[in-house]
């Protein structure tokens, strides 16, 4: 990979994209060939022969949308349920899985005729085209209160989102009985899925908060990323390898030894944080200061004083933080100690841009999403290390929640959450 910070980074996040940000993988390859790429910018995703978005399977041991490569668009929507009984809650979850499966398979209900409402909005055409769509269903701590007799089934780490010192959480945009994460290769495909999922569960689910997100999909792997957050820095470097079953088993998916509630095996804890970025303030901060706050070069993404994005920062030779400040974001988030290895998690966030606030400042930021086997050892430990980091001057967590992603619906008759009712 390019080591010169001042050279425009050709292969990583320029060109080779459509106006919608869906990466044309062939065009991208051409760009790589043109600059004679050295080393390993390996494409991730569906392989070189598949330029077009695909249909992904809803069924499996684990839910989709966790280790699936993140596409360009997403919606996270938290709901509260008004189900009046266990039976109604089970029916709701069953209906969600049924509709999610239909959506991911491109199925539309039969049309009953012109005197009835249409069975589908058709916002992505009469026959929904493949769009890398995934629907992920997650449960909040409040679902395990006294309403449905599920207290014994609560995953042991699940609870309302903790309050961290820099948080300014708007409770109307926090927590929720249930969260649906929809990811796809266009905003229309996300909204198409959202509308059908809501229509199928109108009687028992009502929106609590919602945020649409977007990103340039990552085209690199091997400790590199092409994706940048709205602070202009690469985001996702040093993420665990989602394509590695072994690594995901180790860091993301729950094992039978993790929780006395057996139904949780194959599930994962999901943290969502709506983190507002003070982008105007950030844009007038000198580059050097920005880089010392993150601990990385802005252009290349390499750790400060290191040649390459994928280089492990050498903290042992920099005990006082002369190269990479001790309180920089990457050093606090991952101090590269034996202990910190256990705190790794799979990050899979999106950016958001949601108009502006009454002070005239843009409301933009990050929908931080991460998945992990142990909420406390991973996210909470990492976030606690970040307390007081200089970046806090520029970011404010304003919403989000802790959720549990149940194991996948294994077969056609199975549904997400069925393990709660056996």
């Amino acid at each position, binding site marked *: 990979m390019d080591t010169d910070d001042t050279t425009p980074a050709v292969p990583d996040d320029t060109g080779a994209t459509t106006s919608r940000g869906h990466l044309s993988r062939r065009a991208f390859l051409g760009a790589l060939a043109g600059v004679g790429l050295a080393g390993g910018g390996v494409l991730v995703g569906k392989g070189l022969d598949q330029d077009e978005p695909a249909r992904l399977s809803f069924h499996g041991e684990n839910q989709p949308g966790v280790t699936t490569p993140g596409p360009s668009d997403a919606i996270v929507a938290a709901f*509260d349920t*008004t189900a009046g009984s266990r039976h109604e809650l089970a029916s709701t979850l069953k209906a969600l899985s049924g509709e999610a499966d239909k959506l991911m398979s491109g199925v539309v209900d039969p049309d009953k005729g012109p*005197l009835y409402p249409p069975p589908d909005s058709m916002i992505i055409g009469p026959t929904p085209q493949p769009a890398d769509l995934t629907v992920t269903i997650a449960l909040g701590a409040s679902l395990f209160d006294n309403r449905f007799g599920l207290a014994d089934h609560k995953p042991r780490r699940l609870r309302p989102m903790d309050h961290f010192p820099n948080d300014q959480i708007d409770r109307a945009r926090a927590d929720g009985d249930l969260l649906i994460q929809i990811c796809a290769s266009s905003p229309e495909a996300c909204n198409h899925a959202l509308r059908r999922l809501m229509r199928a569960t*109108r009687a*028992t689910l*009502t929106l609590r908060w919602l945020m649409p997100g977007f990103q340039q999909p990552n085209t690199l792997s091997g400790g590199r990323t092409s994706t940048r957050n709205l602070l202009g820095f690469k985001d996702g470097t040093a993420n665990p390898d989602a394509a590695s079953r072994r690594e995901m088993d180790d860091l993301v998916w729950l094992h039978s030894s993790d929780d006395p509630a057996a139904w949780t095996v194959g599930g994962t804890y999901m943290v969502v944080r709506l983190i507002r970025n003070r982008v105007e303030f950030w844009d007038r901060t000198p580059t050097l200061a920005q880089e010392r706050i993150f601990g990385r070069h802005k252009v290349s993404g390499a750790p400060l004083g290191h040649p390459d994005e994928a280089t492990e920062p050498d903290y042992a030779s920099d005990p006082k933080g002369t190269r990479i400040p001790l309180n920089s974001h990457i050093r606090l988030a991952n101090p590269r100690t034996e202990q910190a290895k256990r705190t790794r998690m799979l990050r899979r966030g999106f950016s958001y841009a949601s108009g502006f606030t009454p002070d005239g400042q843009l409301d933009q930021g990050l929908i931080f999403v991460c998945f992990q086997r142990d909420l406390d050892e991973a996210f909470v430990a990492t976030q606690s290390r970040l307390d007081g980091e200089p970046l806090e001057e520029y970011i404010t967590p304003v919403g989000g929640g802790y959720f549990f992603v149940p194991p996948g619906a294994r077969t056609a008759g199975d549904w997400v959450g069925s393990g709660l009712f056996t």
Partner: protein
Amino acid sequence: MKLRRLTVPLAAVTATIAGCGGSEPATKEPPRITAQITDQGCAQDEYTSPTNGAVTFDVTNQASKKGEFEILSSQPSIVFEGFYAAGQSKTSTVMLRPGTYVVICGNTNTPNRARLVVGGKQKPVDAAQQSTALTEAAATYTTYVRSQARALEQGTTRFTDAVRAGNDARARSLYAAVREPWERIEPVAEAFPDADAAIDARADDHATGEADAAFIGFHALEYGLWAQGRMDGATVNLTRLANRLDRDVAALVGQVNTLTIAPATMVNGAAALIDEAAQTKVTGEEERYSHTDLSTLAANIEGSKYVLELIDAPLTAAAPQLRDDIRRAFTDVERILGKYELPNGYRSYEVVSAANRNALKTSMASLSELLAQVAGTLNLEITG
């Protein structure tokens, strides 16, 4: 005003239509069943009706506390649900298909349940009968709309008299109930855009809100009676607004009296009432100064449910499951409203808990989805 759960005057209408829609001929009064709720449950083990279609229940709650009288089909789905204070008696007419039902007296935990056996045979229905039934229902509905318009006019005069007399307290006490006839027939009244704008526009329908000279009608009076002087905003002239409202309501009554409502318009209106309520009323923004939103909501529900009662027989013949689902959805909404019911109205929308606001949202949204299926089911063309 109380929600009307299948009231007596309606029974005659329903029975007539039942005759056209394929149930037993209903030239005579529907069979009557007398039932008592006791602390142990139902006073009898079995109730029987020789015929299907309309069946009238005279229910008395002899138990020591509030109780329900509930009829469940074998689905099981709730076919009828009524709520009774201790000592209260009510008469209700229910449309029943032949078969055996379960009756709950008290609540679901009360031990003594009863069987209800409904006899007779469901007759097959043909398209011509369906069409006749719908035409008759629409004719009945036209009469209903005219009577509601008259009730609106009479109530409005009482209200505006109080305003002109400077009796603000009396005017405030009348406001919610006086608006109810309007809210029962709102989609039909909205067919006259000028009348709707003059009678029911909200401040935010106008460029400059409360201060806008064009802000007139009920909500301008509501603002004047509740919020003037307590909110930033304009001063409104209550007497002038009252005089104008009288004229606009009288004009509406004249227009409504020339109106003949088609079946499709009626069915569309029933759905529109709930759609609008679900979109803009569960937020509490309709009656933002007086917080009488629950009365408005109850009137919307009542107006919509009346249409469903009128078309019950054709709908039952065409899609019995949809009909039962709609009935249950109405009961769900009524159950939530019932928690805030007072002897002569409803409590302020401000006291409705977050959980019940959510329950209102989902139950209204669910009802909207179901009502959206009715026109197609009855082969009625709604052109928008």
